[in-house]
């Protein structure tokens, strides 16, 4: 059959596929009943996991802000963003991934510190990371650190050999930088 020879001379429509990577999305919402469930349902409906999520009130009454981290295909995430905008209770949705922004996360790590040496070491590491020891027992130190993803990953790696008994993270919060091009010395 000549059927396919005809086809081959024709251009095919390109099916665009985006890169898969981590996205960080800020969502400002009216703090109404069920709004979190709605957002979670929408993201789950696309088959994605939420990597981290943080929610809190803003300075305006009844308005909350969420930061959502998801790993996914750029094009599907673009869809997610558009659909989030469509929700009645969302006010502003912004994918910060490619926009200069500040990211912070707070983590609490309970480390096994039975010996004086372990306590000294952990304290020293904590100081280097500008963290604090916020709880002490005979067996443990609980360390609080704030930072971006790399910093948190680094301290977790350094503390692991001592034995981490418990760890809790707040999930990231993020904010667009006003002067996008300027390196922030505090980073």
């Amino acid at each position, binding site marked *: 059959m000549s*059927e396919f020879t005809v086809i081959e001379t*024709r*251009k*095919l429509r*390109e099916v665009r596929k985006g890169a898969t990577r981590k996205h960080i999305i800020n969502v400002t919402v*009216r703090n109404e*009943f069920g709004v979190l*469930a709605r957002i979670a349902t*929408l993201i789950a409906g696309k088959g994605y996991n939420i990597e981290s999520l943080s929610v809190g009130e803003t300075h305006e009454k009844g308005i909350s802000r969420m930061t959502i981290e998801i790993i996914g295909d750029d094009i599907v995430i673009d869809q997610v963003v558009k659909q989030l905008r469509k929700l009645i209770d969302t006010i502003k949705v912004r994918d910060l991934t490619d926009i200069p922004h500040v990211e912070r996360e707070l983590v609490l790590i309970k480390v096994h510190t039975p010996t004086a040496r372990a306590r000294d070491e952990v304290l020293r590491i904590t100081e280097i990371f500008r963290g604090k020891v916020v709880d002490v027992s005979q067996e443990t130190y609980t360390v609080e650190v704030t930072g971006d993803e790399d910093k948190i990953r680094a301290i977790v790696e350094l503390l692991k050999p001592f034995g981490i008994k418990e760890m809790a993270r707040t999930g990231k919060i993020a904010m667009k930088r006003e002067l996008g091009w300027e390196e922030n010395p505090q980073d």
Partner: protein
Amino acid sequence: MSRKGADIVIETLIEEGVEYIFGLPGGAIMEVYDALYRVGGIKHILARHEQGAGHMAEGYAKATGKVGVAMVTSGPGATNLVTPIADAYMDSVPTVFITGQVPLHLIGNDAFQEVDIIGITRPITKHSFLVKRVEDLPYVIRQAFHIARTGRPGPVVIDLPKDITQQLSDVSIPSKEEAISSLIGYKPHLTGNPQQIKKAVKLITEAKKPVLYVGGGAVNAEAQDELLELAELMRIPVTTTTQGKGAFPEDHPLSLRMLGMHGTYYANMAVYNCDLLIAVGARFDDRVTGKVEEFAPNAKIIHIDIDPASISKNIIVDVPIVGDVKIVLNKILEEIKKKGAKILHEREREEWLEQINKWKKMYPLTYKNSDKVIKPQYVIEQIYEVTRGEAILSAGVGQHQMWTAMFYKFSFPRQFINSGGLGTMGFGLPAGIGAKVGRPDIPVFVVDGDGSFMMTMQEVVTAVHYKIPVKVAIINNGYLGMVRQWQELFYEKRYSEVDLSIQPDFVKLAEACGAVGFRAEKPSEVREILEEAMRIEDRPVIMDFHVDREENVFPMVPAGKSYKDMILEDGKSPDVETMYLVG
């Protein structure tokens, strides 16, 4: 004045202009039913099953453009509404679904007849509300109607805890503006970006082989006049989806009829070969595009849609225009007129129309009629003739739905009421009833499959109860026909669980329900029955047409395949040499 929450519900519905509610009462919603009885002002159609009520509300909305309202009790009443809610979501039908709920203090306790209907329907609603304070009632109801009918329309659920409907309040009914002022994040974008409109006009004037691809969004926006003007002014052929039918008259010389899986040969060929595709309120559904890579492969695409999330979802487009279809088309027309824009390639444009006419002549929609056995297509053609093409048709889902789409020529918007996105068997009869309630001035035919009909046939009794003279034509092939067709074509005729030859006597069934029943087994009986049915105005008619059992729907583009794999009648492939234009 202090009155019960339930009274506030009815008052606000009246303020919103609601004329009909379709529903069925129960414990949790009884206060509202009591208020309906006491306050009056709204007519209620008591369906025999909540699914029926939901589809009636949809049919009413699809036929009139007004918001359809269904009201049910909590628990099983609410879960019976899930299918209509999903259906309304998929086809963007403006609807408000009111569900009773257990009293607030019992929510979450697995109380009697409690389900989390808000949770269950979250992914299939445009929005939903659980009312927690009696004072919120009029605000919530007004917001629900606003959300349901504006932007891309859709279903909104209002869940009413029983105690809220019992509490007293003297809250007054706010104005629309006041009620919606707190929806600060909801502002549908209407006007279309002027830059994009200029680009679109440029592409339209430069194109040699343009096609307009029109979906339900054009019907929702009531853009038929603008569409006709644009098509005629710029000489652009028009194809529509199942939901877009009637937005452009199918008896117009520029009409290509329907595209997609069961589209016409010429519509699909035109889309395959065009160099500019103008999508208007359509969403590139997979039943339309087939294999995406080979959908309009050489065309630039303009996409006009009210819903930004619909744009570049399935196919990346060149000129996206977010806005109300009617407003945007008007701006495009204005721009064309202001600039005195002309078709640049007159000669190529005329050749394109000639080519399309050749395709139309080569493979028109046809079937082989018979004088021994009733062909389903013949029944549809006869319905077209006895109604002079002026009836509203609603359909179930399956072969009969596609034959209706093919062999009835639709000429005005809201004329073909069917379940496109969800493909809900059982939609046809209740939706037809809702349509007739909304448009008593126009005859309404329900074209149903024997399988589809049996899914909601209890609503015949509802039509008898309210003397709603819908005319139901059952295209009875004794099969789940569309599934059988796929088994024939793609599963070597292994007819797994599709035989419906054990079925009720539909004539006796009609009579038992208080309707009129007719049966036709020979082609010569078809016309007479239809004419008789047209004369009955005081109750529903059920016509049982025993048709050729193994007739197939062609043309057909198998799922996920390209238009080039189209199967014409008798399983023939089209002559490949004729399918493509060079260059």
